[in-house]
């Protein structure tokens, strides 16, 4: 695909998807018992306008370039991830032969962006948020690698379009039943959402974002939503057959599958407590990592 249409496709998905995440999260919160915070369709826009008008504060001796760039970097990682997603056999912003590897590297780079956001504020609570994410990051990235290797085995390719093509008969969610649940946990970690929100958590008064206000905070919030959208697209592509499906056009199928993943993540974020950091790391290494080995062995045997 040419550069301009590819940019338009990614930008449109990020904007529409990010807005939808904000609305859906408010609707789910309402269903879970939160008092209504105004019209859920208007509230995200109003909040965006308020943040845009608020001053961007400065802490004492921050690393200003890094502090301002970290949200943009995280947003850029989300956009790059989304560019790898095939919407149909031909509608792909970047049909990279090593797309799965690139996605893996984006997950690793997210650790850098989030730590940078916490560290560069030069404030204690933000720094602890950054520390925590680094401690968590390695745990979930390993799980992600094994699960994704399981997905590329039947495709015999590292290209997401091939991963989708091999799911014509049977989706990976059925073929490798451990894969999607494990990958959803990776998604909660990558987006530090709900139970795995250790970086920007309540006990740290917002963690890496605790000292940020105004437009930089708006970019950070948009980036977090964009990453949820990008992750949902990758999960739908890797496990739910991507654009494949009867009757409806391919892009619509993918959008519906992304929405299902998004709703699952947002719902989990509202109904589960935040995991204690030590317990979280133990769970990842002692339970989930071995399960991802099992998933890989399963995928290998199935590929034979």
């Amino acid at each position, binding site marked *: 695909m040419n550069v301009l249409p590819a940019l338009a496709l990614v930008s449109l998905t990020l904007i529409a998807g990010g807005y939808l995440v904000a609305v859906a999260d408010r609707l789910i919160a309402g269903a879970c018992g939160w008092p*209504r915070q105004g019209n859920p369709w208007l509230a995200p826009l109003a909040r965006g306008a308020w943040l845009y*008008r608020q001053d961007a504060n400065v802490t004492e001796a921050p690393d200003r370039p890094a502090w301002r760039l970290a949200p943009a970097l995280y947003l850029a990682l989300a956009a790059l991830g989304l560019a790898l997603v095939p919407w149909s056999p031909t509608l792909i912003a970047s049909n990279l032969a090593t797309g799965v590897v690139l996605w893996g590297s984006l997950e690793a780079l997210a650790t850098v962006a989030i730590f940078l956001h916490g560290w560069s504020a030069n404030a204690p609570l933000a720094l*602890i948020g950054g520390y925590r994410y680094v401690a968590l990051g390695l745990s979930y990235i390993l799980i992600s690698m094994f699960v994704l290797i399981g997905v590329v085995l039947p495709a015999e390719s590292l290209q997401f379009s091939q991963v989708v093509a091999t799911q014509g008969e049977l989706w990976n969610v059925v073929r490798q039943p451990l894969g999607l649940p494990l990958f959803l946990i990776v998604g909660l970690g990558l987006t530090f959402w709900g139970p795995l929100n*250790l970086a920007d958590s*309540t*006990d740290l*008064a917002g963690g890496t974002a605790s000292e940020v206000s105004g437009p930089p905070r708006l970019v950070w919030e948009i980036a977090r939503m964009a990453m949820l959208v990008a992750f949902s697209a990758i999960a739908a592509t890797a496990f739910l057959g991507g654009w494949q499906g009867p009757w409806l056009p391919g892009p619509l199928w993918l959008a519906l599958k992304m929405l299902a993943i998004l709703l699952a993540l947002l719902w989990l974020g509202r109904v*589960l407590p935040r995991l204690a*950091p030590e317990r979280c790391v133990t769970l990842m290494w002692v339970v989930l990592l071995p399960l991802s080995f099992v998933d890989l062995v399963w995928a290998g045997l199935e590929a034979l």
Partner: protein
Amino acid sequence: MSWLERLAARAPVPVYPLLGIGGERVLYELALAGRVARVDSPRHASVLLVAGHVPAQHHEALKRVHDQLPRPFATLWFRSQPLPGLENARRADDLATLADELVALHRELHTGQRGSSPRLLPDEPPNPWQGLGDDGHGGEGMMGGTPYGRPMAMNMQDDIRDGLTLDSLTFRLGPFYPLLPPGLAAEITLQGDVIQSWTSLSSAYPRALDAIFQTAREQPVSIAELELARARHHLRQLYLALRLAGLESLGLQALRLARGLTPASRINGLRRRLMRSGFFNLAALDGGVLDAEMARRLGGPAARAAGIDADLRRDDAHYRRLGFSPVLSWGSDTRARWQQALGEIEQSLALARRAVDEGDPLTAAPGNVETPCGPWRDRPSPAAGGCLDELLPGLEWDSALATIASLDLAPVSASPPPGEASAESASASSGSHEEGAP
């Protein structure tokens, strides 16, 4: 006025609550009010809500919090006196209209009817730069010195948990950090997110309990009402802990239950949802183990959660006639204290029901009262101050804050703030109980 300003004015109002003496009640009202969102960092707020009286020794800290709000922002002083320099700030005394006042203030701010609150302090570091370089990151500044009056995050102490030594980070928190009891301030040293040392600098402000506990010291009161007030207190504490644990939806359920509490109320649904959510298994509730001596000195539910059979209600003949015997838990950690709280809420509701069935008896005699925080005491328990200094080192940050949320560290104030008692009874009579009646 631009469309952007009009849109910003319609946003849910982010409010940073700065709690003085007797200000806690606003948290519960704001949590259940639509259009207002409580935030935990002043950087995230549009309105600074100062609730309750702030003692003079903390006015400087108040000014520092005030000046951390990004422009445009406003302040609302609820049952509190604005600081000099903020004479034009809005004041409010009525809890029922507080949310409306906050929304109106935010709208005025963004529609140009009100200017941003003025800065109270000069925009300069509180201490001069005393580092070896000219910046906080890199260069000689990293090699030592005390930039801005604080030591650099240098590796000065061995790690006390797993031997993985990180740079020690020392900072002060409080007296208005919203996840600590109001008034409590401490100097904290961390390695990673493990607490290396905790030195309390000031105690929590006295806390106003429901007026009925004060009345019970002077004259016999209805046991049913006393027990409902006790259950209400525990439910509100549970809300704070659940919010901290990332389970605000369940916390709101507890608050709604507290608001409409009657003898017919049940907490079965809340308990079931708590178990299913994994609160007791996944959240950071392992820490804060009190030894027997400390538990005994703290008294109340903290002692009973450590298996210590101590409760002044046992000395009351009318309570004994209702079949009262203390609920006990074993474990004495944060988890045990929340299990104890649930047990005590259920017991209080059962006692209230039994009391109503038996003609609503009064307490046998005025005098020493078992409050929801333990025996009535006007001054901080001798254990409360030093308790955290001993208890928290070695805990992860999450676990430390969960421990603090599970302990009643504040002394009890002799009388509730003006309007508190009437607001309490009005809301109780107007509310309806949420979970199934028998």
